[in-house]
């Protein structure tokens, strides 16, 4: 899938991931030169801590949440969370993806990356995805008494009653 002559390091990484995690890897995509590895929510911490400790992915760029409400291919799994990891030095990126139904919680990776603190709070604020194990899970942008989660697809752009 990955052209080894163009991306030797990513090809190596993918090989190590599949040999280490085997069937725990739910799927792999490689598009636009970016590698995404899909895992179950239960395997997320093991995967990310292994990527950090054994493969040098020492920085978390961002945590990105997606609302799959209008995506028929999502199979009823309402949300996806993407963890964008980065290795420095010797720059390399990898994305770890989990899919979860509405109401499910994601484990916090705060113990692995301090930069996850505000990113997880932002995800909670905008999508209402609960983060298990976060030390201080509160809204970050919106007031504490705000009703609703604005980046969900069923939150209207205008005309919402206050």
């Amino acid at each position, binding site marked *: 899938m990955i052209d080894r002559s163009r991306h030797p390091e990513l090809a190596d990484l993918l090989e190590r991931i599949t040999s280490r995690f085997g069937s725990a890897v739910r799927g792999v995509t490689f598009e*636009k030169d970016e590698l995404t590895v899909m895992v179950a929510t239960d395997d997320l911490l093991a995967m990310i801590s292994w990527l950090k400790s054994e493969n040098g992915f020492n920085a978390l760029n961002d945590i990105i949440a997606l609302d799959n409400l209008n995506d028929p291919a999502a199979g009823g799994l309402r949300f996806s969370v993407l963890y964008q990891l980065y290795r420095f030095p010797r720059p390399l990126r990898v994305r770890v993806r989990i899919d979860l139904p509405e109401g499910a919680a994601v484990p916090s990776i705060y113990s692995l990356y*301090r930069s996850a603190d505000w990113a997880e709070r932002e995800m909670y604020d905008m999508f209402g995805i609960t983060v298990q194990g976060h030390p201080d899970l509160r809204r970050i942008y919106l007031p504490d008494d705000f009703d609703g989660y604005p980046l969900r697809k069923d939150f209207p752009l205008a005309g919402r009653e206050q």
Partner: protein
Amino acid sequence: MSFKEVEFNMGPQHPSTHGVLHLRIAVDNEVVSRVEPFIGYLHRGMEKLYENRTYAQTTPLTDRLDYLASVTNNLAWVLAVEKLMGIEIPKRGQYIRVILSELQRIASHLAWIGFFANDIGAMSVLLYGFAKREDILEIFEEYCGARLTIHALRIGGVPHDLDEKIIGMIRSTLDTIPKRIGEIESLLTDNRIWRHRTEGVGVISGADAIDYGLTGPALRASGVPWDMRKDIPYSSYDDFEFDIPLGKNGDVFDRYVVRLAEIAQSMAIIRQALDRLPDGEIRTKVPRVLKIEPGEVFHTIESPRGELGFYVKSNGTDRPERVKVKVPSFINMHCLEKMCKGNLFADVVGILGSLDIVLGEIDK
């Protein structure tokens, strides 16, 4: 004699918070024990807006994130969209983008040095910095008619070519910048008060800084050579020779030194780009109604404040399914408590200033 911990509120209306920021600071005997930032006063729901605008309509909206560096915001966005479309723009367009981005970096750093020195109490530097920044804004005005949120780039290229008049303006401005930097340095670098207020203040180690997600000049001041222009070059940055200025101690003084040194490097990049400006087209053909096949990309660039990135997911229509902005100030701000702990209450303003945050970007 022992004191009880006392809490102070700084902001949301405070001249040194660079926008609308509220800090709750707990001090014990003048020494900071906790700093809790409250943000969101400027939250405009940018990411929701992006989902409901076409790709081209979003470009000017990105100007409003980091309003001191609109060109680099545009650049991060258009590069992410171009990567999603799988197109590359002509060399001349790429070089013009580099020239505008580096001019923007100089303008941003000049504005920063003014605000920052003003925070610490050296008020005249503000005017020195801003007078020179004005020259760069005039170049932008000549280029596209606007000065602050200039919408200088388009998906697929740049809107205007650089003519002889603008190139002359850029060259003559570059010639005068070193003298101005020298003046600023003579006011600050060997000033005893300045050094007392900045040296050994707000220290963060390189390893901590990476863990906390710090990027940009603040990270490089801690001695980490992390610069997206070198690490994952975009827009032909690998054609140019430049250094990455690094600090040693990771304190406020080093952040000041690194930013001033970056201005010189940016000038070197602009000169090389002007000297070697290739002939040819400045943009590629992009459909008027831009529909992008389903896909996702994450692309980051080096903005004046740090690593700025866009995650863009398309769904086959003319609007993106999801856009997530990775803004440097948001994550840099998160390090504030780590830097302030154990420092004097009076230094919080200096440390906050040294991070060079823009609230428009943090609050999205």
